[in-house]
């Protein structure tokens, strides 16, 4: 089935209030073009989940689209912090359920396998679990291992309404390959009711059939396939393009206050009809080619 869609169409399929998982990891394979389009369309009250909070989540929060965040902490690596997320937590405008990388990954895994709950060794003896019990008591519990009697912390599965995954290669049915590490993306896609694939390149299904071991997200999980080059800019996509250091530094400056961030949104989200106009703001093709990954190094 041909699931090719424009970014506008794919984003328009998400009602406000949805639970959306995002594929970014601090500054790589972030669903940036997706986040910008969500803000453009004024979709709000989202719950966002992600193992390690990334730039896509920070932008969505800064754009006022997020009500609740379920994550394991995060940053922009050496470039900076998730300042929009942190500000939301500090002034209580954002409900953040804060876990660890593995506890969120296990919640996605349980969701992906139709498991009712999943035991974990993490979180015990920390203020993380104390805080989670205060904010979202219904998401964690303690049960006795029926085989040993040992007490185990168990987590509730995460079941996003939509999983949004930025990949390198997909076919029109959504059969997708992720090149490089996959962090939580495969479990996110399988845990969600449906997945929106944003692919740097769409290839014929014939190409997929030639390397079926590489298909980490089967098309049956996918509702839309968006072909959009440089969709993760300014973050990197392994073997496609490097992160755009200057553009990330400008973002970090913009995070400083709600006012400066508002101006950033005006310039890079609202003043752009679509992703192509956004890319032009950075000098278009001429500049983007400077980010193109080296064929051997992959960055």
């Amino acid at each position, binding site marked *: 089935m041909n699931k090719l869609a424009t970014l506008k169409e794919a984003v328009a399929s998400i009602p406000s209030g949805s639970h959306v998982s995002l594929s970014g990891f*601090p*500054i*790589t394979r972030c669903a940036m073009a997706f986040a910008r389009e969500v803000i453009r369309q004024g979709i709000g009250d989202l719950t966002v989940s992600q193992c390690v909070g990334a730039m896509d989540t920070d932008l969505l929060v800064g754009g006022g689209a997020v009500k609740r965040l379920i994550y394991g902490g995060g940053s922009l690596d050496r470039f900076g912090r998730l300042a929009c997320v942190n500000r939301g937590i500090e002034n209580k405008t954002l409900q953040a359920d804060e876990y660890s990388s593995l506890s969120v990954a296990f919640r996605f895994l349980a969701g992906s396998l139709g498991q009712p709950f999943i035991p974990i060794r993490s*979180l015990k003896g920390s203020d993380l679990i104390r805080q989670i019990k205060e904010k979202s008591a219904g998401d964690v519990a303690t049960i006795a291992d029926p085989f040993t009697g040992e007490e185990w912390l168990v987590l509730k599965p995460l079941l996003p309404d939509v999983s949004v995954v930025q990949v390198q290669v997909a076919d029109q049915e959504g059969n997708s390959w992720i090149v490089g590490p996959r962090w939580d993306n495969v479990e996110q896609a399988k845990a969600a009711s449906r997945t929106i694939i944003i692919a740097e390149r769409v290839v014929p299904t014939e190409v997929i059939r030639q390397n079926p071991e590489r298909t980490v997200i089967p098309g049956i999980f996918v509702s839309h396939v968006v072909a959009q080059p440089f969709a993760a800019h300014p973050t990197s996509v392994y073997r496609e393009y490097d992160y755009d250091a200057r553009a990330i530094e400008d973002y970090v400056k913009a995070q400083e206050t709600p006012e400066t961030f508002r101006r950033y949104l005006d310039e890079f989200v609202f003043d752009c009809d679509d992703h192509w106009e956004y890319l032009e703001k950075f000098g278009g093709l001429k500049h983007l080619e400077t980010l193109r990954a080296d064929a051997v190094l992959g960055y």
Partner: protein
Amino acid sequence: MELKYTHSELMAVSGARELKDGEIVAVGLGLPVVASFLAKMTHAPDMTILFELGIIDPEPVHCGVGLADPRVWHRAKVMSSFVDILGSILHKGRVDVGFLGGLETDQYGNLNTTLVGDPRGKFRHMVGSGGANDIASAAKRTIIIIRHDARKLKETIAFVTSPGYVEGGESRAKAGLAGGPSRVITDKAIFGFDEETKKMRLLSIHPGSTLEDVLGTMGFAPVVPKEVPFTEPPTEEQLRLIRTSIDPGRMYMG
């Protein structure tokens, strides 16, 4: 002749010395990366390096700005997932050593990477856990690397992101956790933990520092044995590797 080296270089070398050949090590970016690659290039060639996002044994040729920088994934033997690294290796109990850093730690090695200030009142939110809490919970032992400063080595910390020995004694085991911190490496000294009380115990003082300096710049009193040796300084070879091949741009060593 005496070698010149920085605090960071001594910390990295001290971290490397804690790693044994054949061990599996979970690493975050910065000093731990330097310590781990240094160990692997010298006495621990069969050590395995893990990055939580799905990387095993990379051989970077460029330094990166973080774990999300493909430069640090280069030439890995495995590129997989959180569930693979943190699930089937860490949670399964196969990780020997985990490196941890933080904003603050207390005398029991509990670590805060979440916030500064008062969690109930005014605070600044920082990075949070990432894989740190998972590593602190499931690694056989952890090594804490932190700056030696009274605002970082505190009597009580604002938030326990990654548990050390909790309230000391048996409290970590009672919380259902095995393992725990084995070393705390600062820019002035190296600490271990007392067998019984699980309180930080001074093991060695870095050349150039004094006992007074060490104790005067921390927010709690560690156990101090009668004899405290000086930390073994880096060798010429170790410094050469750090400066010429591991971190030529001084990116990780600040």
